[in-house]
């Protein structure tokens, strides 16, 4: 296999030193695991884990026209965001399918838009293709700024000594602009694991020292580096969509259970009419949560049966330590089969295995 021109984040050398298993991911060499996916998963649920997310796309938007303009491209409200607020938002195509799911951050004098690594090029092109004549400036910082996430119940306790402001007082989905260990940082109380935690944006040059200092200082309290493998199990348990699985150019936010983010009272945005019509008809296939009865995992692409009817396919599947060590999955199902409690079967290598539809999320933290 040729690694070609894979990019590396500012933390690549640290991953190598930590013995990470590196894989190509969205054009970057990224750690899938350091020790074991299950150990890293358990650390996040019990103590805290540290993630390198520097491969994700980061765009900075400036100018008076940003909010109104963004409101015409994405489904959730941008203009109503308060200073230092963060908000989940989805950019759609004309048919209501998703270009990407993203997070906007309203910072001082600028906006930060974080997009999936796999969609960074597509989203950059999309934003540029819809630039207004004036009022909006765009800068692409993909790969130029580091993003480190600390996630887990001990996140506050571990991060607090490094930040001047009181991070425990931060509201969920809000940010501060402060310093971490003396270097400028944007800190957001956001995450993709279902646990408490923070996402920390710093300049590339400061990332290795911050990463190492956090690990050195808090390893004794259980902090471990965590890779993309654990990240995927955690987000699936927490019922969070992953672009390419629960959201695609052909799967709309409404189908993916993200209609809460759809603000139809906004008069005009790309996909609005298609999404409004979809909500109205309510006859669409939709993402549902499944729990397998047995030990065989459901995987992406497996057919789902309801009696004799093929009612859809699995979109994501995993062994789930936080769900009683059961196998969980999301599936895109015909509406009649998607009701909570429905008994279904997932076809695994020609044999049908029993499963049941459950409400999402599979996992909710207790605090």
């Amino acid at each position: 296999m040729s690694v070609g021109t894979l990019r590396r984040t500012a933390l690549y050398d640290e991953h190598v030193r930590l013995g990470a298993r590196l894989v190509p991911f969205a054009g970057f060499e990224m750690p899938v695991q350091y020790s074991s996916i299950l150990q890293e998963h358990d650390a996040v649920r019990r103590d805290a884990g540290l993630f390198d997310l520097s491969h994700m796309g980061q765009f900075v938007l400036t100018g008076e026209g940003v909010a109104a303009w963004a409101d015409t491209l994405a489904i959730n409200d941008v203009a109503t965001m308060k200073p230092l607020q963060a908000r989940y938002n989805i950019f759609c195509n004309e048919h209501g399918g998703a270009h990407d799911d993203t997070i906007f951050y309203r910072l001082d004098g600028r906006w930060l838009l974080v997009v999936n690594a796999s969609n960074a090029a597509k989203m950059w092109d999309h934003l540029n293709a819809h630039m207004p004549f004036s009022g909006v400036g765009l800068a692409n910082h993909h790969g130029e700024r580091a993003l480190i996430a600390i996630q887990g119940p001990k996140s506050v306790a571990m991060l607090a000594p490094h930040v001047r402001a009181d991070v425990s007082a931060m509201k969920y989905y809000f940010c501060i602009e402060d310093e971490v260990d003396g270097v400028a940082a944007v800190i957001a109380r956001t995450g993709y694991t279902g646990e408490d935690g923070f996402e920390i944006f710093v300049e590339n040059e400061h990332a290795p020292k911050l990463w190492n200092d956090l690990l050195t200082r808090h390893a004794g309290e259980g902090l471990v580096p965590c890779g993309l493998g654990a990240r995927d199990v955690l987000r699936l348990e927490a019922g969070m969509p992953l672009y390419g699985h629960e959201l695609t150019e052909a799967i709309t936010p409404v189908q993916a259970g993200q209609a809460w983010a759809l603000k139809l009272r906004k008069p005009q945005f790309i996909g609005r009419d298609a999404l409004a019509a979809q909500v109205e008809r309510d006859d669409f296939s939709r993402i549902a949560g499944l729990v397998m009865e047995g030990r065989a995992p459901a995987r992406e692409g497996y057919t789902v049966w309801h009696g004799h009817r093929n009612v859809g396919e699995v979109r994501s599947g995993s062994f789930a330590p936080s769900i009683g060590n059961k196998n969980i999955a999301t599936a895109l199902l015909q509406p009649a089969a998607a009701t909570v409690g429905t008994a279904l079967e997932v076809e695994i290598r020609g044999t049908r295995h029993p499963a049941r539809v459950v409400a999402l999320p599979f996992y909710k933290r207790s605090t």
Partner: protein
Amino acid sequence: MAQPEHLLYSKEHEWVKVDGDTATIGVTDYAQNSLGDIVYVELPKVGGKVEQFGNAGVIESVKAVSDLYSPISGEVLEVNNALDADPAAINRAPYDEGWLFKVRLADAGETANLLGAADYEKLATL
């Protein structure tokens, strides 16, 4: 973990322990390490037949499904049922508690197609 000397190995990273006309089969330490956390294993049926280097089931890690091959031909006598509840035994003790299945050898001469510990070691340290 150094390769146990008394075992024979396949290029697909299985080991075989021959005992007269029966053999025990498992996957090597290199295999379990490459796979990562094993969460499920599908073994051949007792009474069924396996072919040397033919498909014998599936081993699943958290992220992937991998084909399991039999390093030797024979009739399946026993499978390690404990792996149903504890597939992680394969990671913990691949040569011991993590054994997969036992066969009555169809042709003891097939061992000539397998590698000794020293030759497998070269393969497993690439």
